[in-house]
């Protein structure tokens, strides 16, 4: 599904990633392990075409990533970032603007569906009318997760999406993604809940190997 082949990435003169290969099969859930700065986020950026590797190649669904095929990744995978900049709109305006994108025009974001997801993640419907910058980090994180779920995609790229949540909610989010057997997930997180789940494989980015 997602294949990194002998990736080298250099920022300025500093090598961030050296000769990394990683193969994620369809429906697998993989959490990236490594300290901050070990290139975990860069793997997401490269997969989405925001950063180009200096050497090596990336395959998504069997297709080599280039200027054309990255657009397909952006339509088929969904990405959530730790400190996502959601703009100065209300939550419902943001959800509305996402639903209006051409790539999502086949979806219906019904009120019931949105309210159901809000409830699942412990948010009250009143949060929809609040401006995003006034929400807490945890609330924003959950809004971002809910948007990714509304998109009904099969590949999830989750970059530190549980960092601002409390223990109970962390577990809830981890369990939700781990228990869905129809999706592929690539995760980066420092939260132990992701590592202690039997359905999630752990890949050590620094050692470039799977953890047993």
């Amino acid at each position: 599904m997602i294949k990194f082949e002998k990736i080298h990435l250099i920022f300025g003169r500093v090598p961030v990633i050296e000769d990394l290969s990683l193969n994620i099969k369809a429906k697998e859930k993989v959490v990236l392990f490594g300290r901050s700065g070990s290139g975990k986020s860069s793997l997401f950026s490269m997969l989405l075409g925001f950063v180009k590797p200096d050497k090596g190649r990336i395959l998504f669904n069997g297709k080599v990533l280039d200027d054309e095929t990255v657009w397909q990744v952006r339509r088929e995978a969904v990405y959530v970032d730790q400190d996502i900049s959601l703009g100065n709109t209300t939550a419902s305006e943001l959800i509305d603007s996402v639903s209006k994108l051409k790539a999502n025009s086949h979806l219906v974001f019904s009120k019931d569906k949105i309210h159901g997801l809000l409830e699942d993640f412990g948010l009250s419907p009143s949060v929809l009318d609040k401006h995003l910058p006034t929400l807490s980090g945890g609330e924003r994180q959950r809004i971002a997760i809910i948007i990714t779920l509304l998109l009904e995609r099969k590949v999830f790229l989750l970059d530190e999406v549980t960092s601002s949540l409390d223990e109970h909610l962390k577990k809830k989010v981890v369990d939700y993604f781990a228990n869905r057997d129809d999706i592929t997930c690539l995760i980066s997180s420092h939260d132990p809940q992701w590592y202690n789940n039997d359905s999630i494989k752990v890949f050590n980015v620094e050692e470039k190997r799977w953890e047993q």
Partner: protein
Amino acid sequence: MGTIDIPISSLALSFLLLLIPIVISIALRLSILRSLLYSATRMAIQLVLIGFFLKYLFEYNNPLVNLLWLGVMLTTAVFTAIKSSTIKISKIFLPVFVSFTISTLTVIFYLNTVVIDLQNIFDARYLIVLSGMLLGNSLRGNIVGIAAFYKNIRKDIKAYLYRLALGASEYEALLPYMRQSIELALKPTLAAMATMGIVALPGMMTGVLLGGASPALAIKYQIMIMIAISVSTIMSIVLTILMTIRICFDKSGMLKQSVFSNASIHD
């Protein structure tokens, strides 16, 4: 009812008025003294030269020469607009030139043919003077608009990338920034339009009035030019953004850092 001529000697007396800002600058130790004198001198020299030039241009009134001079005006406007942004001139000169040319010529030829109904639509008195007003005014909007568009994207690149990651096309992801900068660019023009006549007697009207025409005629020209300015401003800012996007972004929708003259995001 001609305009009273000002002899050169008397015109020199108007420079005496500058003594007031000079005294203020010295007393308050403002740093603008040098640039005040520089700008005033440069303005006077430029206008004297352009005065002679326009005199011959009007007398000669050759369509080709008029269009050539319009080309010079456009080129200068394009250079000024790009210079105040953070983008390298060599990269986007052509698209901005095309955008300014289309938006100015469309409006001017519409005015000259449909509204004023000129015999000779290349008549220097209309072509050059009206284009000058359009360019001068839409330039301000364009400077604000182009600079804000690219500055906001670079400052807020994460929000742009997030929209791409949700499946937005390049155009869809850029639309919020386009809206922002077009609205910003149009604000001064719209504000000027709304207060016209009460707060300011604009240049066009002053010119026509001093030229000896009736206020009624002056107002008709002013109404026409204000509408023309707002139209050419919005046309040129939209065209400029659409055309420079092709150059400043690569096929994968990423900003090309090589088109910017400064590497840093903050200016």
